[in-house]
């Protein structure tokens, strides 16, 4: 297959002029699955949150207000808690169909607006973290595999095992202590130093927003603030990817076609990059996808320690205050992330491996 051809053109049995129906069918199937999965998630989240012992009014109203029937009635009416559970769920789904995720009981803001603030903060961190993890983890994995059972391999295996074994919250505290407190190489908490104001919200990525507005110093400061939490989040995934890449490369490296390539005198570098890695990449890609989804949805502790106002902090706050609309919003977001990431991985399989495209 020639490089640069579109995915649709690569699928057999279809001319270039006709619309890429199989791909569209694939997209449509995924979209329908997303709808059902989303609906299922809302139902499960709704039921579980309502089954949890505790009263949202008690969790959100103060110790005096909870004793005031007028205040309690006002709270229940505002959030529809005075209606039966099926009614509440029906209203939620109806609003959801219109793009309304309800209003957060804590901040009394639309959940969509809150997600719009928190998601970009996490996404900015997650993207950098996963980029570091992929470059370093895949690189080290290949290195470990091609130097199998040598000193480099042994060292890298220990290092990767250490990476996956370290509790992330502990790493975060240690990193903060060493690089911020002791060495003062990197800033501590938050997305910006106090003397910088947040750039006007366009993408929600402070680095990009600041650059778009020509605030170079703010962009630099935002980038510096990203480094430490991104590295902490990346360490686990570096260990994970090193191990998976090593295993995947080792599976491929002893195949006949690799031996044949060597016999033809192709350089080792070319063999690794063009033949070995390409064949090993699909399974590594699965891990990368899952790692990215995990970072996007599971950085609660790191976000808390680095005072990073991301989706992890939002999820924690919502759960501890029984903020039902916010919990539902976070649950839906998590579901969407996994679905989208899996979808992206599926598409990338086809791009990387021609055998998957034709099957």
């Amino acid at each position, binding site marked *: 297959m020639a490089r640069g051809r579109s995915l649709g053109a690569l699928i057999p049995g279809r001319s270039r002029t006709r619309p890429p129906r199989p791909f569209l069918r694939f997209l449509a199937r995924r979209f329908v699955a997303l709808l059902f999965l989303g609906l299922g998630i809302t139902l499960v989240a709704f039921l579980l949150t309502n089954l949890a012992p505790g009263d949202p009014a008690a969790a959100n109203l103060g110790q*005096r207000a909870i004793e005031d029937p007028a205040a309690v009635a006002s709270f229940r009416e505002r959030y529809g808690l005075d209606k039966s559970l099926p009614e509440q769920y029906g209203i939620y789904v109806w609003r959801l169909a219109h793009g309304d995720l309800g209003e957060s009981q*804590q901040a009394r803001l639309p959940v969509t607006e809150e997600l719009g603030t928190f998601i970009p903060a996490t996404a900015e961190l997650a993207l950098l973290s996963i980029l570091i993890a992929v470059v370093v983890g895949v690189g080290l994995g290949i290195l470990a595999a091609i130097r199998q059972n040598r000193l480099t391999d042994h060292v890298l295996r220990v290092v990767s095992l250490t990476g996956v074994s370290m509790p992330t919250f502990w790493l975060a505290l240690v990193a903060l*202590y060493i690089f911020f407190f002791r060495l003062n190489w990197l800033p501590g908490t938050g997305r910006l130093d*106090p003397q910088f*104001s947040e750039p006007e919200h366009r993408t929600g990525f402070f680095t990009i927003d600041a650059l778009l507005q020509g605030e170079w110093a703010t962009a630099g400061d935002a980038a510096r603030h990203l480094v430490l939490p991104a590295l902490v989040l990346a360490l686990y995934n570096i260990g994970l990817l090193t191990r998976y890449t090593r295993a995947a490369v080792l599976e491929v490296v002893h195949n006949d076609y690799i031996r044949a390539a060597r016999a033809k005198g192709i350089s080792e570098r070319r063999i690794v990059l063009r033949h070995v890695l390409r064949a090993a990449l699909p399974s590594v890609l699965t891990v990368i996808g899952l790692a990215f989804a995990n970072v996007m949805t599971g950085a609660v502790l790191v976000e808390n320690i680095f*005072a990073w*106002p991301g989706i992890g902090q939002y999820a924690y706050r919502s759960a*501890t205050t029984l903020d039902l609309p916010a919990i539902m919003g976070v649950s839906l977001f998590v579901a969407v992330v996994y679905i989208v990431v899996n979808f992206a991985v599926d598409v990338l399989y086809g791009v990387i491996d021609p055998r998957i495209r034709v099957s």
Partner: protein
Amino acid sequence: MLSRSTPRRVLLVAVALVAAIAVAAAAANSTSNDQAATGTLVIDKSFDLKTADPQRQFEVTGGIVAHVLYDTLLEFRGSDVTTPRPSLATGYRASNGAKTYTFTLRRNVRFSDGTPLTSRDVVFSFRRLINLKGNPSFLLAGVTVSAGGPYTVILRSRTPNPALPAIVANGSLGIVNSKLVEANGGTDAAGADKTDKAESFLNRTSAGSGPYLLKSFNTTSRVELTANPRYTGRRKAKFATVVIRNVLAPAQLLSVQRGTNEISLDLSPDQARPLFGSRNVNVQAISGPNIWFLFANSNSKISSITSNKRFQNAIRYQLDYAGLVRLAGRGSGRAAGVVPSQFLGALADAAAIKQNTTRAKAELAASGLTNPEVELEFPSDFTSSGLSFGVIAQKIQADLGKIGIKVNLAGKPIATSLANYRAGTEQLGLWLWGPDYPDPNDYLVFLPGQLVGLRAGWAAGSDRRLEALGRRAGSTSNPRVRGQLFRQIQVQLNQRGPFFPLFQPGQVVAASKNLTGVVYNATFQIDLATIGSR
């Protein structure tokens, strides 16, 4: 020998000197009065923030913010919480047996947009607070508000309310610019809980007359304030910008040592230990206003054991109060009664119940109970001042175990344990009470039939003498007499009530050494406007 002209020369020199001193003094004076606010003050706080709307906020972080955005009629100064001082009001007059309060407003006050502040704004703010039916609405329960003229405000209470001067100093009673808030969806009319739409506006822009203005507001990351250039009051901002950041205590510990112009508000006494004696950081560890207490449910339907008065006495005399205070850490103090030591009517330490194991054993024997086994509930996922309820519960379990009372620890997530506590279904409960306002009336809730009394199964009519004393104390306006009455109440509570006040945990304020005016106050924590830099 001196020439004839010498005295004249001396006189001229003296005049010139006096004039120079006068000019220098005037210049110095004008510098100190008109000193422009500069620099950035950084406050690290673990957020419990919900809103910047003064009439909706009733959280600690929200109180810190509201205190500098919105002026109140009266205010507390420094660390004092006993005497409300003039702020927007030059003073007040109580009449009709503490049922009517007339406040006279200062005439030269302007909001940050230049609008003059009048009684209309006060009436709007207070009515809005009442009609929003939010967390702080109870502060003006049974109170009606009216204007007696452009600069006179009258508060009428259904019942005698000597706590009203302390209540109007609360940040939730901060005065908003009524025209501006109304123009942005605000209302003070009945039904405001459904029709008022000003919260999102007030989360973006402040509408007050305080020393700072709201620049940005985020409930999970940071709040940014800037100095109010039109401010004319006593508390002129000394920093151009204040940034309040949401940071967990362990990170606060590192930041405050690294930063300048930085204050940490959430370190526990244990966490702050490395900072004592630090070259860069000043640390204050003083008793906070929260009262940690244990109760034994007096409702026999909940437990025939804990409702036994002799059993309650056994607990009362067996608890190792000194050990509990030590466990709570540096700065912590014994809670002699339910009213915190800083407030009017607090009991002296000497009047506190002391551990007496012999008496405790005798009381347990007299209770007729053998090998009693009870459940102690507490919020397992909640800490206050860095102190875990679980640790204190274990100490109580160990103390009572020494005289044969078996205590089963039943820690639950706060959402669950709070529901049980409020429903009055806990046998033994370990909780704290934080002041809603700095007045002993806020502690009448511990009496039979009242809010916390009912949570301990202490129904109205259980102790008529104490209840009558409570009614008298709650409606007496003379501070000296009130103080005596509240002390009497607490002595009786300590003798026969189901509550066992334990301690007031230490409150740590760690600040960069270059900062001045960092004073902890039990109501608003710290006044950002009084903080300056050397």
